[in-house]
């Protein structure tokens, strides 16, 4: 449902000179994504999950998206605010933890669900090929500098029991404040070493 932006989002949009907007939250899986309807154009405001504190993956993503958009690839182009910053600081309210946020162009399209066909996957494969080609060029040109994977599977730790799923009912009832730290303490003794 479209609605006026909450004050915290209104302040972010004002940093971009956007006023009298309407917003609608369209996703809330890991990141929250708000579609923003402004007089100029529709945009997407991505608010990263609280635990996504590391700025390097976000800044790498911004640099990559800018390069892709410049190359004509169909990706959302990040938008800098009035101070030239792409990555902004957002708080739902004064008592909440700060989170990163980025405003981007909105790409119109439709959600394909039961109608997913091989032709759609072929287009996605073409896009992935262009993404990887771009990344290779940007790394060679030292535009992207992150040397590590964004996420890694800790296969050895799972295999030898240093990682396991917390027992039901033993998970903390409060939100974790740092990735892994709170849950690790609640793991069964058999999984600790």
């Amino acid at each position: 449902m479209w609605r006026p932006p909450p004050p915290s989002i209104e302040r972010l949009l004002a940093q971009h000179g956007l006023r009298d907007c309407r917003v609608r939250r369209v996703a809330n899986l890991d990141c929250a994504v708000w579609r923003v309807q402004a007089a100029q154009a529709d945009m997407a405001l991505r608010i990263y999950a609280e635990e996504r504190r590391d700025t390097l993956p976000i800044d790498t993503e911004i640099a990559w998206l800018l390069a892709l958009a410049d190359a004509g690839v169909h990706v959302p182009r990040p938008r800098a605010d009035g101070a030239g910053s792409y990555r902004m600081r957002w708080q739902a309210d004064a008592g909440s933890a700060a989170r990163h946020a980025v405003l981007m162009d909105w790409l119109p399209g439709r959600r394909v669900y039961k109608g997913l066909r091989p032709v759609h996957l072929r287009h996605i494969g073409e896009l992935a090929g262009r993404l990887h080609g771009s990344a290779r060029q940007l790394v060679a040109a030292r535009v992207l500098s992150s040397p590590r994977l964004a996420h890694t599977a800790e296969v050895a730790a799972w295999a030898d029991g240093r990682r396991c799923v917390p027992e039901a009912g033993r998970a903390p009832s409060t939100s974790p404040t740092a990735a892994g730290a709170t849950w690790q303490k609640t793991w069964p003794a058999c999984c600790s070493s």
Partner: protein
Amino acid sequence: MLQFLKHPLTPADAHHRTAYPRLRDALLEGYAARHDLPDSLVAQIDPLIAAGLLITLQWIVDDWPRLDHRAWGPWFLSRMGPALDEAFD
């Protein structure tokens, strides 16, 4: 993407699993039209899907306050073992 087509997060997405071979092949065809696709990479798809399952599990364990923080959490966990077995068959 292939992870979630082969191992959907909810029973309602099971039709993607049925169509998985055709969807995977189309994805690879599109990729190869734009970028090198070594045979060795194709052979790594199932192990990479297994790694993707572990990364999803790590996200749940590290970042979720409870297993049912998202509705698909318990079902995902119940399917984890068979999915890993399948990846390494």
